[in-house]
């Protein structure tokens, strides 16, 4: 008579362990992979473009998507190669990434954090994407960055300008090419001083979420350092539409400057309505009333029409720059789509190429290899001059543009003009700067 080696307790224990193993999402299991999440199998590698295709930032999202598709074409050897020809690194040969053809899936964040996370999760779990790229809104970027950190994939953020993205919410698996609120303040300050002097009374209208808060803090700090006084900061709900109730109190507040910490449709509406209330025709404290929009985009400027004329702001990049990288990208994008790319499109295109190059240099898709390749990586030829990804917080440092609404546009794309290219040294800050304090970059997570 044979004796069974299985005890009841042993079977239960084994079953529990096996069950727990099966219950772990596929993307967290190492089996079948090379020790990291969604290690590419076969001759292709898949990346996920998670952008707003509906909702208030949909136009930015759709432009990001155009640029991302262009980047994939270039990586796979189609088209004219765009910025791959001007990039200081020469590892990208047009044969995909590490010889694997690049495929992509797209998701719609709807500019909502929960929807964006669900979309990214689906890309990681169902589509087995190795990297997530894109997005508009810092709330969304921070949410998706957290998810990618947990899942063990790389997140190359799109349009996110809050200090928190690479400040208190920074993550080892996340990288931001776009500039931030602090940099906008540092770039705008000297120009505003030259243009409007040292004695201004500033009234802020601020979008009530992480981006608005940190931009307001940055711009207030920068202008107060000039000697300006912040009269009031009023938080406004995102998507308020009619800002008249918030604008009317400005008329009798004693302020001579309105700073709109708004973006997208909110900025178009609040600026238009501020001008309808006659703010720019007023004289207060013996000065012409002025309006400042610290963060600009071409799409917003087009939406605001003539209201934007003469209004100062800042940008990460603009298609009118004359360096070789910009010219190559504008040519590729313009010939394919018939209009110049936006700043959001530029960032997402560059992020896709930077990721691909980092994988090539690391020789692996392993997120920890990619993190190591991107940290303290210096490069050029991507439209912003000499640029580096700081290892301490994964923030890109490069020149920042101060812009002004074109006074006399000559064509439909002539909405903004470059006032100054602020040198990188002027917008740099220490990793432990108080506006970026807190949080922990942590360790890279390969997900296995």
């Amino acid at each position, binding site marked *: 008579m044979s004796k069974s080696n299985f005890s009841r307790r042993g079977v239960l224990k084994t079953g529990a362990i096996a069950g727990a193993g099966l219950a772990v999402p596929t993307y967290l299991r190492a089996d079948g992979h090379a020790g990291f999440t969604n290690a590419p199998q076969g001759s292709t590698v898949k990346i996920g473009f998670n952008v707003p295709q*509906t*909702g*208030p930032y*949909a*136009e930015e999202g*759709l432009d990001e998507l155009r640029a991302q598709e262009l980047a994939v074409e270039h990586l796979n050897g189609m088209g004219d190669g765009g910025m791959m020809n001007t990039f200081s690194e020469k590892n990208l040969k047009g044969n995909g990434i590490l010889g694997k053809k690049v495929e992509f899936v797209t998701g719609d964040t709807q500019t909502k954090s929960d929807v964006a996370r669900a979309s990214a999760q689906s890309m990681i779990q169902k589509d087995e994407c190795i990297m997530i790229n894109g997005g508009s809104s810092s709330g969304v970027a921070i949410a998706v960055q957290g998810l990618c950190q947990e899942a063990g994939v790389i997140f190359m953020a799109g349009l996110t300008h809050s200090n928190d993205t690479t400040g208190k919410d920074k993550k080892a698996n996340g990288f931001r090419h776009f500039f931030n609120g602090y940099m906008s303040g540092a770039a705008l300050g000297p120009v505003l001083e030259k243009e409007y002097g040292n004695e201004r009374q500033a009234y802020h209208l601020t979008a009530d979420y992480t981006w608005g808060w940190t931009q307001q803090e940055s711009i207030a700090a920068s202008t107060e350092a000039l000697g300006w006084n912040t009269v*009031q900061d*009023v938080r406004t*709900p995102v*998507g308020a*539409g*009619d800002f*008249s*109730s*918030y604008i*009317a*109190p400005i*008329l*009798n507040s004693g302020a001579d400057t309105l700073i709109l910490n708004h973006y*997208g*449709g909110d900025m*178009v*509406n609040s600026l*238009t*309505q501020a001008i*309808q*209330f*006659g703010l720019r*025709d007023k004289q207060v404290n013996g000065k012409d009333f002025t309006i400042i929009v610290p963060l600009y985009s071409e*799409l917003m400027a*087009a*939406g*605001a*029409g*003539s*209201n934007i004329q003469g209004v100062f702001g800042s940008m990460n990049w603009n*298609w*009118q720059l004359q360096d070789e990288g910009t010219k190559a990208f*504008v*040519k590729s994008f*313009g*010939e394919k789509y018939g*209009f*110049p790319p936006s700043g959001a499109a530029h960032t997402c295109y560059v992020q896709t190429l930077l990721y691909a190059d980092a994988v090539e240099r690391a020789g692996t898709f392993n997120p920890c290899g990619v993190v190591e390749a991107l940290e303290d990586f210096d490069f050029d030829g991507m439209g912003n001059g000499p640029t580096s990804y700081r290892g301490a917080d994964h923030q890109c440092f490069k020149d920042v543009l101060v812009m002004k609404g074109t006074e006399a546009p*000559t*064509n*439909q*794309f002539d909405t903004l003009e470059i006032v100054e290219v602020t040198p990188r040294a002027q917008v740099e800050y220490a990793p432990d700067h108080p506006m970026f304090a807190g949080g922990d970059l942590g360790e890279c997570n390969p997900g296995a």
Partner: protein
Amino acid sequence: MDAFILQILNGLDKGSAYALIALGLTLIFGTLGVVNFAHGALFMIGAFCAVTVQKLLGLSFDVIDPTQTDFLGNPLKVAIPYVEAWFGPAIGGAIQDWSVPLAILVVIPVMFLVGWAMERGLIKHFYNRPHADQILVTFGLAIVIGEIIKAFFGANPIQTPAPEVFIGTVDVGAWLGMDPGSVAYPTWRMVYFFFSAIIIAAVFAFLQFTTFGMVVRAGMADRETVGLLGIDIDKRFTLMFGLAAAVAGMAGVMYTPILSPHYNIGMDFLVLSFVVVVVGGMGSLPGAVLAGFLLGILQSFASMNEVKALIPGIDQIIIYLVAIIILLTRPRGLMGRKGVMED
């Protein structure tokens, strides 16, 4: 005092938009008994009629200007609007400048047709269904219309400025005997307020002083009896749906210089307008107008910095707070009729 008057004006302006939408909404509910969640979409279609008229008047042909280059370095194509080519730059420019008022002439027949098609094509099939079904189908319809608009016009707001003559402010302070310039209010917002007052008065006059309106009011009170008298009340109610759509459409057209239209603008107004209808009393036309202005003014005052300093966040909840208080104290709303939504 200046700030107080400004917020009153703001409230009247907001309230006139709420009242116009709520008026159509409650008209449809009072006549057809349908809870129309697509009514905000009608406001949006009206707004995009203005955009369409602006685009049509801006249709142009290209002329190559060899002296300039485009962003790719090719010779620049300069767009010449047909109206400027046909009528000269001065008259052509003026026609384009007046695109929003001109859109009113277009929006009335268009919205009548849209309302008629919506009622005959979809909503009539839901007359005898529960209100929940009506809400679901009309809400779905609103989403579909929004997506169609987005497919045609994109997702970004589109600037639709008022005619040049209405740009700037009106010196309301001088009108009230105060210091000149102490209370300045945007001219177009004043135009919007007076326009709304005229439309509201016209709708009431139509219902009060015409035979058609009398029959409709009789039908609202007792549909069955009016039907037994041999009057085709359904046909009249269909026309009322068209009228409500036209009112919403006109409200949308005139609002475009205040708020640049985008594909979601209808949804933004829909929820508030429903609260207005509920506060005013389901099916009550004067109630909708009264509640529209009341909530508009309260919302404006709640946005004042002094008020928000006392109760943070009050500007976001004031409308719903008032709705709760009114429904607790007057369950039928301010001017609601007995029996409506109570079966």
